[in-house]
C-alpha cells in the first residue's frame, strides 16, 4: 500500500460535525425569520387589504371569455359574427336554497316544468359554486323587466349580457361553416378547464368545429372584489383575453347563391373548386337548415322535425353522401389505362352493345344497347362507352385499378380542413377478403371500370379526382379556409402528385372530356350550347336500386325516391382550368340531362361578368397557344 494508513480522528470528526450543527442552526433561525417576516407582511402590513377582501365576501377570480373569431367569405362578407344577447344566470353559492330560487324563476317568467328540469340540469353542470351558470338565453325585454321587478325574490340571479354566435347568411353555409352549440357534458371532460372557464359555446360541426382552437382564443380573467350580495365592487386586476382568430373562407357567397339557385329546389350536392389551389369556391348540400337554431339550444320538437325529415336537411351530402361514381370515374380510369399501358389512345375495341368475359354467359351491357361499333379512347369518353371500359378494366385487373384510383383520392379523405369527411370506399382484394370473407371475382373488376359495384365516393372526392385531371396530377387538398388571421392553412399530410410516364396522356383524356360537351355526338352537348369557353366534362349515373339481369330500367315503375342519382363533373376553361364543379342531383336520373346544366350554370356564374361576357382574367391568352396539343 503506497497510501499512508489513515487513523480516524474522532475528536476532529466531532468538532467538524459540531461546526456544521452551528451553521445549520443559524440557517434554520435565518429562514424562520424569513417566514415570520413574510407572515408579518401578509398579516400586519397587508392586513387591511386582505381582511377587506375576506369580509366583503372575498375575492373572486372571474374568467373573461375571449371573443370568438369571425368568419368571412372570400370577398369579406361576414358569415359568422357575434351578437350581444341577454341571458339569465344564477350563482349557486349566493342563491342559498337554489332549488327554491329556480321555482321562483319559473313562476316569475311563467315557464313550464320542462324548462325547470332543463335549468336544474344546467345548474348541476356548474363547476364551481361561486361561478354564475347561465340557465336561460335570449331573454326578451319583458322577461328582463320581470326579473328586475322580482329581484328581491331571486338572490344570486342576474341578467348578463354576452356575445352569442350569429349566422347572418342563415342556411347558405350551414353545411360548410357549421355551427356552435352549448358545451355538453362529454365535451366538458376533454376540454381545457382553464381556457374554457368562461366559454359556454363550442364549435359542433364544419369550420366552427375544425378550427375551434383558432376561433376560440385565450381566456382572460379579472380578480374582482364583491360584496355579500355578489355585486362587483371593484376590479383588482385584469388580464385581457386574447380574441379568437378571424378566418377568411375561400367560399364566394355569390357563387354559393348561384349554385343553390341552379339546383332549383332539388335535393343534391354541389362542390366548386379552384384546381390550381384547392380552394373550395362553393359547397352546397340541399336541403339545408338554419344554423342559428342550434346556437342557443334547439327545442326538442324542432330538432326531431329536422332529424326525421325524409329530405334529411341535416345530412351533409358533399362530405358524407356516398354514391357509386358511375361514369364520372371514367376519365380517371382512362388515365390509369393509358399510364399502365393496357390501352393506347388509338387502340380500338368493338362494341356490339355488350361485353362478355371469356367462358362466361353473363352479358355486361353498354347503356346504348345497339352498340357504338369500333371505339377508341376519345370516342369511349365522349360516348361514355361502357364496353370499352369493361375491356380496359378487365385488362388492368383489380390491383392496378385500385392503386390508381386510390391515388385519385377514391377511398381516402381528401380535404384539408373539413370536419367528419367520409373516406368513401375503393374496393380491393384485401378489402373483400377482410370484410366479406370472399375471393375477388373478375366480373367485379369490370363494373368498377364504369364506376359501379362496391366503389363509393363523395361529391367532394369526385370534384377532387376531376381537379387532378384539370391540374395534370398536381395534388392540392380541397380546403375551405383561405386564410386564418392572414396565414394560409398548412397541409401537414400532403398527397404525392400523380406523375405519368407520358404527360400528354392528361391532354388526351381532357380532349375526350371536351368532346363530351362540344362534339355533335357528345353525351352532354346540349349543356354547352352558347358557352363562351371550352368545357371538359363527364356525366354519370348512380344506381339507387339494383336492376336484375335482363331487366330494363323503367322509370315509370320506380318510385321517385328510387330513381337514379344524376352526377356530373367538369372543369373550365378546358385549356386553362379555373373552376372544377361536381354536381349530384338526388333521384335526378340523367347525368347529362339534369346535372350537366347545373354545372354549366355554376361555371357561368364564376367565369362570366354581369353582361354575360367572359371575364378578362379567364380569356384564353393569345401567347399561350403553343401549350395546346
Amino acid at each position, binding site marked *: 500500500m503506497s497510501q499512508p494508513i*489513515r487513523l*480516524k480522528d*474522532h475528536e*476532529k*470528526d*466531532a468538532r*467538524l*460535525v*459540531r*461546526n*456544521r*450543527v452551528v451553521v*445549520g*442552526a443559524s440557517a*434554520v*433561525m435565518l*429562514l*424562520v425569520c*424569513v*417566514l*415570520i417576516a*413574510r*407572515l*408579518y407582511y*401578509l*398579516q*400586519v402590513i*397587508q*392586513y387591511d*387589504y*386582505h*381582511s377587506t*377582501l*375576506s*369580509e366583503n365576501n*372575498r*375575492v373572486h*377570480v372571474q*374568467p373573461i371569455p375571449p371573443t370568438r373569431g369571425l368568419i368571412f367569405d372570400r370577398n369579406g362578407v361576414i358569415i359568422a359574427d357575434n351578437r350581444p344577447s341577454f341571458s339569465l344566470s344564477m350563482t349557486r353559492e349566493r342563491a342559498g336554497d337554489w332549488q327554491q330560487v329556480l321555482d321562483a324563476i319559473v313562476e316569475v317568467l311563467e315557464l313550464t316544468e320542462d324548462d325547470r328540469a332543463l335549468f336544474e340540469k344546467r345548474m348541476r353542470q356548474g363547476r364551481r*359554486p*361561486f361561478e354564475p351558470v347561465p340557465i336561460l338565453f335570449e331573454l326578451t325585454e319583458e322577461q328582463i323587466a320581470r326579473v328586475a321587478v322580482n329581484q328581491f325574490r331571486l338572490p344570486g340571479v342576474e341578467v348578463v349580457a354576452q356575445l352569442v354566435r350569429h349566422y347572418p347568411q342563415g342556411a347558405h353555409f350551414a353545411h360548410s361553416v357549421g355551427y356552435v352549440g352549448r358545451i355538453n357534458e362529454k365535451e366538458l371532460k376533454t376540454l381545457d378547464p*382553464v381556457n374554457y*372557464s368562461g366559454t359556454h359555446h363550442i364549435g359542433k360541426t364544419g369550420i366552427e368545429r375544425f378550427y375551434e382552437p383558432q376561433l376560440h382564443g385565450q*381566456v382572460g*380573467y379579472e*380578480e374582482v372584489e364583491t360584496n355579500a350580495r355578489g355585486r362587483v365592487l371593484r376590479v383588482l386586476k385584469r388580464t385581457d383575453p386574447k380574441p379568437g382568430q378571424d378566418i377568411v373562407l375561400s367560399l364566394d357567397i355569390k357563387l354559393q347563391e348561384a349554385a343553390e339557385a341552379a339546383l332549383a329546389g332539388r335535393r343534391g350536392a354541389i362542390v366548386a373548386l379552384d384546381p390550381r389551389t384547392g380552394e373550395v369556391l362553393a359547397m352546397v348540400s340541399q336541403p339545408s337548415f338554419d344554423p342559428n337554431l342550434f346556437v342557443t339550444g334547439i327545442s326538442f320538437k324542432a330538432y326531431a322535425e329536422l332529424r326525421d325529415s325524409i329530405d334529411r336537411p341535416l345530412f351533409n351530402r358533399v362530405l358524407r353522401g356516398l354514391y357509386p361514381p358511375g361514369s364520372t370515374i371514367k376519365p380517371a380510369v382512362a388515365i390509369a389505362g393509358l399510364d399502365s399501358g393496357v390501352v393506347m389512345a388509338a387502340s380500338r375495341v368493338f362494341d356490339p352493345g355488350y361485353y362478355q368475359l371469356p367462358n362466361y354467359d353473363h352479358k355486361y351491357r353498354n347503356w346504348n344497347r345497339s352498340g357504338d361499333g369500333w371505339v377508341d379512347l376519345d370516342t369511349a369518353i365522349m360516348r361514355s362507352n361502357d364496353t370499352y371500359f369493361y375491356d380496359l378494366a378487365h385488362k388492368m385487373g383489380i390491383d392496378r385499378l385500385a392503386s390508381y384510383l386510390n391515388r385519385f383520392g377514391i377511398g381516402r379523405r381528401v380535404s384539408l380542413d373539413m370536419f367528419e369527411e367520409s373516406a368513401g370506399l375503393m374496393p380491393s382484394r384485401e378489402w373483400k377478403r377482410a370484410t366479406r370473407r370472399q375471393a375477388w371475382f373478375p366480373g367485379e373488376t369490370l363494373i368498377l371500370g364504369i364506376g359501379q359495384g362496391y366503389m363509393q365516393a363523395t361529391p367532394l372526392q369526385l370534384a377532387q379526382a376531376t381537379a387532378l385531371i384539370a391540374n395534370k396530377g398536381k395534388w392540392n387538398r380541397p380546403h375551405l379556409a383561405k386564410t386564418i388571421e392572414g396565414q394560409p392553412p398548412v397541409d401537414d399530410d400532403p398527397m404525392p402528385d400523380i406523375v405519368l410516364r407520358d404527360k400528354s396522356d392528361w391532354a388526351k383524356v381532357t380532349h375526350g372530356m371536351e368532346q363530351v360537351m362540344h362534339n355533335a355526338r357528345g353525351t352532354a352537348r346540349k349543356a354547352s350550347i352558347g358557352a363562351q369557353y371550352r368545357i371538359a366534362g363527364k356525366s354519370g349515373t348512380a344506381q339507387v336500386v339494383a336492376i336484375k339481369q335482363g331487366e330494363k330500367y323503367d322509370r315509370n315503375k320506380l318510385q321517385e325516391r328510387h330513381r337514379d342519382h344524376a352526377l356530373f363533373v367538369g372543369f373550365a376553361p378546358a385549356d386553362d382550368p379555373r373552376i372544377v364543379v361536381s354536381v349530384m342531383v338526388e333521384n335526378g336520373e340523367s347525368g347529362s340531362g339534369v346535372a350537366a346544366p347545373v354545372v354549366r350554370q355554376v361555371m357561368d356564374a364564376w367565369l362570366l361578368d354581369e353582361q354575360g361576357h367572359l371575364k378578362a382574367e379567364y380569356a384564353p391568352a393569345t401567347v399561350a397557344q403553343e401549350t395546346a396539343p
Partner: protein
Amino acid sequence: MKNNFDRMLSSEDVMRRRASFLQRIHIDGPLLIILLTLAAGSLFVLYSASGKNWDLLLKQASSFGLGLASMFVIAQLEPRFMARWVPLAYLVGVLLLVVVDVMGHNAMGATRWINIPGVIRFQPSEFMKIIMPATIAWYLAKRTLPPHLKHVMISLVLIGVPFILIVRQPDLGTALLILASGAFVLFMGGLRWRWILSVVAAAVPVAVAMWFFVMHDYQKQRVLTFLDPESDPLGTGWNIIQSKAAIGSGGVFGKGWLLGTQSHLDFLPESHTDFIIAVLGEEFGLVGICALLLIYLLLIGRGLMITAQAQTLFGKLLAGSLTMTFFVYVFVNIGMVSGLLPVVGVPLPFISYGGTSLVTLLSAFGVLMSIHTHRKWIAQV
C-alpha cells in the same frame, strides 16, 4: 482497588436507575413532550379545518397512535444494529422502487404504492425517507472526514438512483426531499464549502443555457407558472390567492377558532391537508403561527442537540440529516402556502391530515431517540 471498582459500577447502576424509567425504555422525554403537544395542536386545528369532521379526526388520532408505536419500536433498536442492516434495507428499498416503476408502466399509469391486497399496502418512497440518510451516514461514517471527492461521488450515485426512480413515479416533491436528506448527511459530514459553492455557481449558467437553447416555449411556460403560480389564477394560482387572503385576513390575533370564513366557506382548497397552515393563520393569526414555529424550533433544537451529543459518527450524521430535513418540510410548506415558494405537494409535518407522513415522521424521531438513549456512560446532568 477491586472494591473501588465495584463501587464505581454500583454508583453507575444507581445513576442508571436514577436516569429514569423513560431512558431505560429508550424514550427521550423532551422530544416526547413536544411531539405530544404537536399532536394535540394538530387535532385542534384539524377539527376546524375539516369542518368538524369527527371521522377524520379519529383517523388522524389513530395514525398518531400507530406512529408513536412505530417510534417506540424503532427507539429500541441500537444504532449499531441499524448501521449493520442499513445497506440491505437500501437495496430492498431500491428494488421495491423498481417494482413500483415496472408495475406503474404496465398499468399504464403512475403509481407510488406497493399493494398486496389484504396483506400490505405502502409507499417505498416513504420508506426511503429514513433509509436514504441512514445509508449515506453509514457509508461516510467509515471514511475520513471531510469526505474525499471519490466518496462524495459514490454518495451522489447512492442518492441519485432512488431519486430518479421516484421522479419517474412521478413525485417530484418527495424525490427532492429524499435528495435533500442525502445531501444533508454530506453537509453534516463537512462537505467542503468550495465544492458546495462551485455546484451552486455551476448551476446558474447551466440553467440559463438550458433556458435559452434547450427548452421549448411550452416548457418555459410551465416553469414560469411553477415559479409564479399567481400568473395562472384559474389553476394553481387560485389556491395561492385564496390562502394568502386567508392568512392575511387573520391579522395578529386571528378570527378565533372555528370562525375562519375562507376555509369554512370552501374558498380554501385542500384546507385540511397541504394548506392547513392557512386555516391556522386565519383563525389564530400571526401569534398562532409563531407559536407553532416556536414548537418546531424546540423540536429542531432538541434534534441538533442530539446530533452534537451523539457518540458515534453514524449517529451524528444521521441525526443531523433527519433534523435538517424536518426543517425543510416546515419551510417548504409554509413558504408555499404564503406564496414565497412554488407549489409542491409537501404536507405540514404533524399538522396536515394524512397517516403515511405521520408514521414516517414519528419513525424518524424514533431513530433520533435511539441514537440519544443508547449512548454509553450516560451522564445525568
